[in-house]
């Protein structure tokens, strides 16, 4: 079987020749390590007065932004191919650089939805970009923001379609490039408003919250449509619905606010004859049955640091969901020994791979997830993941 057949067979809850392995590679530090590239001190350049202004105008040009973002994920796919993965995720976003007196470096990005993303350096000096604060803490600000960003949303959708198509054209012969429509409806509704404000609005302005969610659902479906234009049979979507000890919001409130949206998403993907895999960090046992009910085909992550256990998830959902995960990224994939990585792979395969419906991966990405450990993970999958899986 080739990588694509392996993934699709597993997605069908059938047994491929061996357990497929998926990479969640995206951080620049990881890509640089694997491809032997040096970090670029982007932040340092930005802080030089004249160069900074020039970089700003360059980055805010859609052509340059698209190029930079594409190169980053081309690097991620190249890295995943080098390590022997069958698949890797790919994400397209759009941001604009701005001077910002509240940001520690005097610059930040904003995205079309209304979030501020802080600009920083990771431990090796690479550019790091992280959501830091909302821009729309009132109803009025949110309404005004989205009304003004109509053309930016259109640009985002167009970029997304061409980004995924191009990655598949250039890398599709070597790896299964699975597009991820991110962030999802839950995150796009709370993050531009802020979690505390959003929570207050759930209780105090439920009509506004409904309007936000409806808006984000329509937009999200367009975004998914753009991702799916690459022709790939599987699409990722998602939201961090969980935190360390359980869902962020009471499951019946999630159902009331988001149930219809998630059903629409699954229906839309299925109409296009694709499969929908949902990503959520955190402890999400209490939502697993909902995922099945909403029509998701699979889930990816299952964070061990939040108590998610692959065997327990399989027991709870059986083969109603494909499971993709979940090697720990807090210790194991950062500094675990080869024996520990092998043992974890064996255990994951034993817990979830019988009958297909399982793809091995790490439980997340971050710059310290170590390429050597990823390599060990792939090797162990080849060693212990041949079907039929023994007892």
């Amino acid at each position, binding site marked *: 079987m080739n990588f694509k057949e392996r993934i699709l067979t597993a997605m069908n809850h059938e047994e491929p020749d061996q357990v497929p392995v998926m990479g969640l590679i995206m951080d620049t530090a990881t890509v640089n390590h694997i491809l032997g590239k040096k970090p670029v001190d982007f932040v340092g350049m930005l802080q030089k007065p004249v160069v900074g202004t020039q970089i700003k105008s360059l980055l805010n040009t859609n052509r340059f932004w698209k190029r930079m973002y594409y190169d980053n994920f081309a690097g991620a796919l190249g890295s995943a191919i080098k390590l022997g993965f069958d698949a890797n995720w790919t994400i397209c976003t759009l941001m604009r650089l701005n001077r910002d007196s509240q940001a520690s470096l005097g610059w930040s990005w904003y995205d079309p939805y209304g979030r501020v993303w802080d600009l920083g350096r990771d*431990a090796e000096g690479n550019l790091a970009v992280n959501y830091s604060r909302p821009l729309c803490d009132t109803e009025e600000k949110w309404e005004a923001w989205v009304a003004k960003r109509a053309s930016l949303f259109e640009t985002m959708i167009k970029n997304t379609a061409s980004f995924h198509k191009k990655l598949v054209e250039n890398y599709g012969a070597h790896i299964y490039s699975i597009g991820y429509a991110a962030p999802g409806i839950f995150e796009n509704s709370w993050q531009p408003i802020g979690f505390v404000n959003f929570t207050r609005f759930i209780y105090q302005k439920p009509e506004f919250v409904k309007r936000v969610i409806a808006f984000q659902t329509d937009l999200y479906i367009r975004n998914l449509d753009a991702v799916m234009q690459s022709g790939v049979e599987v699409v990722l979507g998602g939201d961090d619905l969980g935190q360390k000890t359980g*869902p*962020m919001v009471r499951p019946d409130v999630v159902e009331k606010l988001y149930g219809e949206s998630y059903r629409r998403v699954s229906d839309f993907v299925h109409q296009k004859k694709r499969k929908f895999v949902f990503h959520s960090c955190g402890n999400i046992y209490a939502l697993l049955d909902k995922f099945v009910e909403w029509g998701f085909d699979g889930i990816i992550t299952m964070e061990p640091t939040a108590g998610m256990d692959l065997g327990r998830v399989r027991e709870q959902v059986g083969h109603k969901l494909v499971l993709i995960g979940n090697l720990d990224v807090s210790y194991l994939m950062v500094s675990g020994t080869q024996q520990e990585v092998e043992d974890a792979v064996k255990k994951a395969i034993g817990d979830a791979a019988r009958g297909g419906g399982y793809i091995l991966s790490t439980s997340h990405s*971050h710059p310290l997830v170590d390429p050597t450990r990823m390599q060990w993970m792939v090797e162990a999958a080849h060693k212990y993941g041949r079907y039929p899986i023994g007892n």
Partner: protein
Amino acid sequence: MPNVALEELKSSFLSLDMEATLRVANTVIRGDDKATVKEAVDVVAQSLEIVGKRFQAGEWYLAELVYAGEIAKEAMNILSPLMQTGSSQSLGTIVIGTVAGDLHDLGKNIVVSYARSAGFRVVDLGVDVLAQRFIGAVKEHKPVALGMSCLLTSTERELAGVIEELKSQKLRDRVKVIIGGAALSEKVAYDVSADAFAPDAITGIDIMKKWSASA
């Protein structure tokens, strides 16, 4: 006999009815009821504790914990001219922040809000806090506890860095250190020589209350 206004204050708070909670708080402030402001403040603090226990037990969820924190904040704004110190007596100062390189702040903000309502004076340094700022704040505010939030494996070393710096500046014996956040555990607390690990805000506040009592 239980006081009607205080009963109503508690029940509206625990039904997460902000409007009703604030209405009763205003009644107490105006002196329309026999309940004293101190009693009302204590009811809010006790109710918040109940919310915390429900969250710990998995009966209530994060959004409810956050909203209860907001109701308490607004009720205290009305009831306590001293504000920020929710309970009727102050438990001392705590300094808190999310370590350098980490921008996660939901958890830290919850700890801040509940600590204030419990009666601590809180110095919140925000996110992405460099070791030097933690040290400076410890020197300046002489807190009962230093709380560090850290959700990322890549920033765990910051915890050790701050504690080492406390030691080298001879401040370690003067302040207890408590850590919390997704990627942490008791083991990390032990490894970095922190005094405690808090799996959630309520446990953290309970620990700091004990430290405050024995300070």
